[in-house]
C-alpha cells in the first residue's frame, strides 16, 4: 500500500521505506508482508537500496568520513606556549631587568645548586613588598643562572588588569590553580614558583616584616605530593625593604575591588612616582634543602594531618632561615 498514510503504531513492520520526502508528517508506508523478521526486512531494504543506487544520483560527499589523516597545521606565528609564556618576551624582559637584578638589588644566591637542573620541582618562598619584588628576582635569577624556565603561580587578580595581566602571563605567570601546577610539575617537569602566603604576605605592614603569615591551607604540599616532586624552600631577604607598606586603605581597596591598597614608604619618599620605584635593598636568597615526601604520586587524597604538618615544617624552615639571615645582615642596603 504505498502512499497509504496511516499513523504508525507497531514496530515490527514499520520503516521499510528507506527514504521519504522531506517536510512530510510522520507517516509510515508498509510492506504487505506481515511475517518478515527485521533481518529479512533489512536484507530487502539493502537490496532495494543497491538496485536503486544504480540509477540514482547520490549527494556529493559533504565530509569525507573515511579520511582521518591529520591535516598539517600552519606554522605558528608566535611563540606563546599553552600557559601564555613567550620566550621572546622573556628574552626582552631579561635584557631590561638584568641591570635591576645586578645593580639595583644586587641579588646574591646561596645554595643554588640545590635546584635540580631537570625534572619538576615546586619552589616555595616568602612573599613581600607592596608590588612583590621577590617573584621577578627569583625567576630571573634561576633563568639566567640555571638556564631553566620558571613558571610563577599568582593570584588570579592579575588577570583582571589589562596589559598587566597579559604581560604577567607572557613572562611566565599563571593563575594558581591546582590543575595548572599539577600539569606543569608532573607532566612537563617544569620548575614552578609559588608563594603560599599569597596577598597576606605582600600586604604586611613594615612592622611585621619577616614574620611569615599562614601558608594557605597546605595546598602546595598536596600538589607536590600528587605530582611526586620535591618542594624546594627559598628564603628571601631584601624584598620586605624594597617597598614597605606604612598604611593600608581597606575601604577604598574593597570599593575598587583590589586585594589591598597600600601607602608605601616609596610613595612618601618619591611622591606619586614611588608607586613604581623600589628602594635599592640588598637581596639575599638562600635555597634550603629540598623536601621529599616519600608518598606515592597521583593519589586521590593525602592525609590532611600529614599535609598540614609538612606545610608547617616548610614554613618554619623558611622562617628560621629568615631569622638567621636577618641576624647576619649588617645593613639593609649593603647586606
Amino acid at each position, binding site marked *: 500500500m504505498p502512499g497509504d498514510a496511516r499513523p504508525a503504531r507497531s514496530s515490527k513492520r514499520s*520503516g521499510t521505506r528507506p527514504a521519504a520526502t522531506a517536510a512530510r508528517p*510522520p507517516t509510515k508506508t508498509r510492506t504487505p508482508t506481515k511475517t518478515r523478521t527485521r533481518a529479512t526486512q533489512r536484507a530487502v531494504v539493502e537490496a532495494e537500496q543497491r538496485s536503486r543506487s544504480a540509477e540514482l544520483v547520490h*549527494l556529493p560527499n559533504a565530509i569525507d*568520513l573515511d*579520511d582521518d589523516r591529520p591535516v598539517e597545521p600552519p606554522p605558528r606565528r608566535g611563540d606563546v606556549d599553552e600557559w601564555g609564556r613567550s620566550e621572546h618576551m622573556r628574552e626582552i624582559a631579561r635584557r631590561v631587568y638584568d641591570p635591576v637584578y645586578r645593580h639595583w638589588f644586587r641579588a646574591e644566591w646561596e645554595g643554588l645548586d640545590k635546584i635540580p637542573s631537570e625534572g619538576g620541582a615546586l619552589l616555595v618562598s616568602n612573599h613581600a613588598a607592596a608590588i612583590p619584588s621577590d617573584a621577578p628576582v627569583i625567576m630571573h635569577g634561576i633563568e639566567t643562572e640555571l638556564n631553566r624556565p620558571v613558571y610563577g603561580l599568582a593570584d588570579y587578580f592579575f*588577570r583582571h588588569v589589562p596589559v598587566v595581566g597579559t604581560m604577567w602571563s607572557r613572562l611566565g605567570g599563571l593563575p594558581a590553580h591546582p590543575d595548572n601546577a599539577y600539569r606543569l610539575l608532573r607532566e612537563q617537569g617544569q620548575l614552578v614558583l609559588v608563594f603560599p602566603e599569597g596577598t597576606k604576605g605582600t600586604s604586611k605592614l613594615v612592622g611585621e616584616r619577616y614574620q611569615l603569615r599562614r601558608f594557605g591551607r597546605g595546598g602546595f604540599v598536596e600538589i607536590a605530593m600528587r605530582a611526586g616532586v620535591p618542594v624546594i624552600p627559598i628564603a628571601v631577604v631584601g624584598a620586605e625593604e624594597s617597598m614597605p607598606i606604612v598604611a593600608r586603605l581597606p575601604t577604598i581597596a574593597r570599593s575598587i575591588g583590589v586585594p589591598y591598597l597600600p601607602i608605601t614608604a616609596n610613595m612618601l619618599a618619591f611622591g606619586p612616582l614611588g608607586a613604581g620605584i623600589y628602594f635599592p635593598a640588598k637581596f639575599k636568597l638562600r635555597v634550603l634543602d629540598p623536601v621529599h615526601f616519600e608518598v606515592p604520586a597521583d593519589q586521590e587524597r593525602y592525609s590532611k594531618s600529614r599535609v598540614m604538618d609538612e606545610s608547617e615544617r616548610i614554613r618554619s624552615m623558611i622562617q628560621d632561615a629568615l631569622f638567621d639571615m636577618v641576624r647576619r645582615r649588617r645593613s639593609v642596603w649593603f647586606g
Partner: protein
Amino acid sequence: MSPHNVRRVLVTGLGSFWGGRVAQALERDPNVEVIVGLDTEEPHVELERTEYVRVDANYSILAKIVRATRVDTIVHTFLIVDPTQMSQRAMHETNVIGTMNLFAAASAPDSTVRNVVVKSATAVYGCTPEDPTWFTEDTPPSRPLRRPVERSLDQVESYVRDFAEDNPHVVVSLLRFSNVIGTEIITPLTRALELPVVPSVWGFDPRFQFVHEDDVVRSILYVLRSNLSGVYNVAGDGLLPWTEVATLCGKLTFPLPPLGTSELLWPFKRAGVVDLPEEYLNLLRFGRGVDNRKLKSAGFGFRYTSAGAVQAFVEATRLRRTLGDHEPAYRYERDVEQFFRHSPAVVRDPG
C-alpha cells in the same frame, strides 16, 4: 547481528547546522537503517533518506514519535550555544524544555532507546580569570555560572546526568565542543574574524582553542560507533593567542576599551556590524582551554589542531571572496530525485 550494528536514529535539530550534517553523515552509513530528523524548520542541507518531522521547539509530542519509530539511538544536536541566534526565552525553551521532553520520551517504560549522544559546549565551564589553563571533564566551573547560555547548557547537562543515572542500560555520551570554526559554519567569532579589523579587548590577549566542524561531526559518529559513554571534551590541540588568530587571518586587531565594552558595541550591534555577546567578550578577556586527551585516549583522532582549524577557515574565506558563495559542480535536484525514489509512477523493479 547484534542490535547495536543496525541502528534507527533520531536526530534533533535537523534544520540546524549540526543536525543536518550529522544526518548527512549517517545516511552514508549502511548500518543505519532509519534516520528521523526533528526540527521546527526544514533542513537546510540536502538529505537523501532522512525522514523529516516538523515539531514545535520543545518537542511536546516526542514520546509518540519515539514510540512509533522505535528508534534506538538519539543524537541530540539541537542545543543553542550561540546567544545571538535567538532570545533568551526561546533558547530556554529549546535547550532546557526540549531536552527535558526528549529524555522524558526516551525514558518511557517501553522505550527502545539504547544510545544517546548530546552535543553540549565548553561554555558550561564558564569563563573567569580564576580558570585553570586546561579544563578536564571533571573540573567544575570556577564561579557559579551567570550567563544564560552557560546556565541553560548546565541545566541540560544535569538532565543528561539524571537520565544516565536512571537508565543504566542506555549508553549516554555528552560531548562538549570548543569554539567551532571551519569552512561553512558562522558563529559570532567567525563573523568577528571576517571584519576588516578583528575586535579585541584592550590590554588582553587570551588564548583560544578551536575545533574544526568536520571533527565535530566525526566525533559524534565516532562516539556512536564505538558506544562510548561519559563526558568528553572535543577541541583541537593547542591554544592560540587571539592576536595570533587575527594574524593567521591576515588582519590586525582593533582594541575595544576594557570598560563599558558591551555598551560601546551596542550601536554596532544594532547596525549589524558586530555582535559579540557578553560570553564572547569574556572569552576575549580570559580565553578558555579544555583538555581533549580523554577522547583521544578513547581512540579518536582529531584531523585539525586549533591552528589548523583556523587555517581551514581562512582558506575557505579566501575562496568565498574570490568565487562568491561557490556552488558545488554538481547540483542535486531534490525534487527530481525524490520523484525517482518515491513516485509509484517510476518502474522500480525492471527484473
